[in-house]
């Protein structure tokens, strides 16, 4: 249908797709976003909304996170309405050895340009009065922030629509239009959508979309649960998490890992994570995980023992074997770009991902070298 022809078709109305649509529409491209579900109905809606620089060691992902956190600050002004809160993160260690390791990481991050403040045990209460007094110390990261992730996606899409983008939910991509090797649009449950560029922002399902185009992008689900408390006054000021969280994120273990990640929200609820399990798309509630999360939360903030949990939700983080996202053009299918596989950092990294994709589509020099995120890096030709 020629009336549907777009410069860019974005597959996925999650936060990455929304950011991509926003930046592409802002630079004058005609954009159509398609999603088989609803706005932010996948992993975006199951996230906490973290924009973190604290949980990444120096390297390509930290560079991406730095770029993204600056862009989110701009988006909070330019688009807004998604509860952007530059609250800062506080990482705590329970043992002296853990504290030493944390301080060492902070020193490396600091050298890479991240603001860090080492907080000895005695200084923690000043930052978080309800923290257990039995900790060895922590590091404060003023650069960490939070957004309400569904609102962020919805507001970015709304802003993109105001610049002419179209958002079509309930429309499933079933294949690609090709002209030789070249991708020239998508086939959908609602007809063909021709486009000169197609962006795969399908999150956890990004691998399936890639395979429809005949290319391999190894994105796999890693399940996580979050507990939600009753509405409370501000009891927790920062995003507070245990130093082990960094190791859990980087772990390749398929078994369950839990480490306490606790933060308040503008709505008053406290969100309690984080668990990681590789169990495919199993949506079964795991009481074992919920118990572990509760026990760890109460250990860190004893005041929470009497607070009620009123909700829990689970989501599937899209992870790649090397824990880096996939961002950039796919040389195996010209015209197809990928913007997926952000694991648990998708909200935080969305702004930079969208911006970089828009720059690449426009033929501009991207703000950041995307080579570490190139989609074909997993392929046999890379190994060879």
């Amino acid at each position, binding site marked *: 249908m020629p009336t549907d022809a777009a410069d860019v078709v974005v597959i996925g109305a999650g936060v990455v797709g929304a950011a991509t649509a926003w930046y592409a529409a802002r630079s004058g491209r005609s954009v159509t976003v398609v999603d088989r579900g609803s706005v932010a109905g996948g992993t975006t809606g199951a996230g906490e909304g973290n924009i973190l620089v604290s949980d990444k060691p120096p390297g390509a992902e930290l560079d991406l996170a730095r770029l993204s956190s600056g862009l989110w600050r701009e988006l909070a002004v330019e688009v807004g309405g998604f509860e952007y809160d530059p609250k800062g993160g506080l990482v705590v260690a329970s043992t002296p050895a853990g504290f030493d390791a944390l301080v060492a990481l902070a020193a490396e991050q600091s050298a890479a340009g991240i603001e860090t403040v080492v907080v000895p045990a005695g200084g923690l209460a000043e930052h*978080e*009065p*309800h923290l257990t007094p039995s900790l060895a110390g922590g590091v404060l990261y003023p650069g960490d922030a939070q957004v309400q992730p569904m609102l962020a996606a919805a507001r970015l899409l709304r802003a993109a629509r105001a610049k002419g983008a179209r958002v079509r939910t309930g429309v499933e991509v079933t294949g690609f239009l090709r002209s030789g090797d070249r991708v020239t649009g998508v086939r959908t449950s609602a007809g063909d959508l021709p486009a000169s560029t197609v962006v795969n922002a399908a999150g956890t399902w990004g691998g399936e979309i890639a395979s429809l185009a005949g290319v391999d992008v190894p994105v796999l689900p890693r399940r996580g649960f979050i507990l939600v408390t*009753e*509405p*409370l*006054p*501000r*009891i927790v*000021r920062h995003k507070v998490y245990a130093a082990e969280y960094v190791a859990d994120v980087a772990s390749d273990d398929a078994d369950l890992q839990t480490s306490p990640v606790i933060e308040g929200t503008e709505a*008053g609820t406290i969100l309690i994570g984080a668990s990681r399990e590789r169990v495919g798309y199993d949506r079964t509630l795991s009481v074992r995980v919920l118990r572990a999360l509760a026990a760890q939360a109460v250990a860190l903030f004893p*005041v929470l023992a*009497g*607070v*009620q949990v009123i909700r829990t939700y689970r989501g599937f983080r899209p992870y790649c074997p090397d824990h880096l996202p996939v961002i950039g053009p796919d040389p195996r299918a010209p015209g197809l770009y990928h913007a997926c596989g952000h694991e648990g950092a998708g909200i935080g990294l969305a702004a930079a991902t969208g911006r970089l994709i828009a720059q690449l589509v426009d033929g501009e020099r991207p703000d950041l070298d995307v080579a570490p995120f190139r989609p074909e890096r997993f392929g046999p030709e890379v190994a060879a």
Partner: protein
Amino acid sequence: MTEFEFDERDVPFTDGQTVGAALVAAGVRSWRTTRRESRPRGVFCGIGVCFDCLVTIDDVPNQRACLVPAAETMVVRTQEGDGRGHLAV
């Protein structure tokens, strides 16, 4: 007549009545204010479904007045907002 304390007055109740029912019988229609608009609230569903009748009993906030049986030693207090304002930092 058995009574419990509610906001420094005595509220009578009979055996087996809930805190919420005893308050309604005593002519008290609301014992909580909402978090956003500070609107008064009391019993609505009466069967533990709606959580409108939340109240602070013996310093524990957010108890459903329609479910908790009244007892003579209870100290019941009007709850403001989330009921845990003293924990705010």
